[in-house]
């Protein structure tokens, strides 16, 4: 522990955060239900205790702002570490995969129905639909590729002609 009382508070806070994080990870790993109150309480208690101590240490000074900023930075850093640990678990990846699967299951029929509806509406209005515009754009991309192919061939022919011209000049010389 550091000698500086503010640093001591930070160290204590960090330790508390890490302990709470570990407890949370343990709960996640064991498939237990996370109790939000149990998770948040240590943070809140620690926060209150720390600030009570800071405020009773002496008169408020401009340094208080800097201390508060430093405190928040460390708080965020500790949270980032906890979250990173939690999110790097297989349990989190699995939960996220399930969430995505649920979204896709809902999105597929909704997207299909919306597309059909839009196509029918635009067709009735005599306006080109999104898929027709996309198809046209895709054809343009293909045309561009063919032009590039021709450009390459032309380059090759020109290069050969230049070489032949140079050889001819050499022969004549």
């Amino acid at each position: 522990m550091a000698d500086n009382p503010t640093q001591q508070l930070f160290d204590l806070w960090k330790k508390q955060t890490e302990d709470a994080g570990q407890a949370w990870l343990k709960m996640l790993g064991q498939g237990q239900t996370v109790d939000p109150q149990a998770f948040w309480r240590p943070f809140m208690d620690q926060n209150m205790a720390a600030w009570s101590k800071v405020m009773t240490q002496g008169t408020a000074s401009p340094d208080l702002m800097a201390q508060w900023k430093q405190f928040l930075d460390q708080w965020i850093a500790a949270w980032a570490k906890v979250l990173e640990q939690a999110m790097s678990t297989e349990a989190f990846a699995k939960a996220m995969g399930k969430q995505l699967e649920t979204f896709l299951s809902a999105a597929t029929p909704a997207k299909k129905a919306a597309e059909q509806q839009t196509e029918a509406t635009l067709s009735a209005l005599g306006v080109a639909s999104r898929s027709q515009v996309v198809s046209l754009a895709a054809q343009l991309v293909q045309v561009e590729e063919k032009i590039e192919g021709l450009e390459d061939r032309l380059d090759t022919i020109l290069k050969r002609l230049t070489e032949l011209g140079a050889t001819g000049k050499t022969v004549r010389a």
Partner: protein
Amino acid sequence: MKDHLFTMTPEMPGLPPEMQERMQEEMRRNFLRMKHFAEMVMTPKEPEVGPTPREEIYRKNKSRLWRYASKRTVKTPLLFVPNLGISRPYIFDLMHNGSFIEYMTGQGFDFYLLDWGVFGPEDNSLTVEDAVTKILPRLAKKALESSEATEMSVLGYCMGAPLSACFLASQPEFPLKNYINMAGPIDFAHVGLFGTWLDPRFFDVDRYVDTLGTIPADMVKLGFKLLKPTMDLSTNLNLWWNLWNPEYVSGFNALNKWANEYLPFPGEFFRHWVKDFYQQNKLIKGELTMGGRSVRLERISCPVLAVGAKEDNIAPPNCVKPLISVVSSPDREYVELPGGHISLIAGRGASIHCWPKVAAWLAARS
């Protein structure tokens, strides 16, 4: 008026003069914080980005090749290959005195930027192979022609590093002078959180692409925000803390504009990117085939520099460094610099640690 305001604060005899000065300074800063906050909310200004003059050399579908003005005192031109999709490349030329491109052109490099562009639904069939065997070689060829050089250095950043490595490792006839991998994942076994999330046991990429077609920019944004959920909080806290400083505010505005402009992925590209790179790690294993040619990293034999960022959570150092052990170059070096994935190449830290290192390494070999 603004300075006088704070000299009018009453004398506080109980406080030492040093403390009084600091309190006045803090009050001044608070006043400026309020002023700048009001300006940001009431009269927001669109930040000017991309200050370095440039010309378009070539255009292929959505992709562009840009050349940046320089004195060309370094003989070998440099082709910069950034990520495809995700974000716009103006982060590399964000603002005057805060631009990697401006720095490199100032050092005399003939600098070319491959801007992949913004792909739409019509490009959904574009694959990684197309990017590596059609777009990249063509634009690299045009860069060579434009510079009238016989050799070229290539710098791949982020996803641009594995893409350019695939190109160079499958087409060894390209006249490559030097190669730099900057924060580009090579060994995807150590790619961190994304690697865990995209594990085939949990993430069905086929179902994802088949359902969505194009991977929307909002989905990309969600993925990156989730990578560091506290990022917005710390960004805003730092903004508040530095809001008194007009230079910081100006930099924040430019960076914030970029940080909120996410780009979509072409569907097939995303499918192949996730499967071949994240899920099967084919690049380092030498199992990739592109354009009928095998991609063998040991074919890269020119001088190679790999640059990792200590706090990078997108391409952690452990997935960048392995490039050094697989290339066959006798001249190879790995450096690990302070910063994260973005701050490695953009921002004040980059201008101190990264840019001079990269420029010096290249200049000595160009």
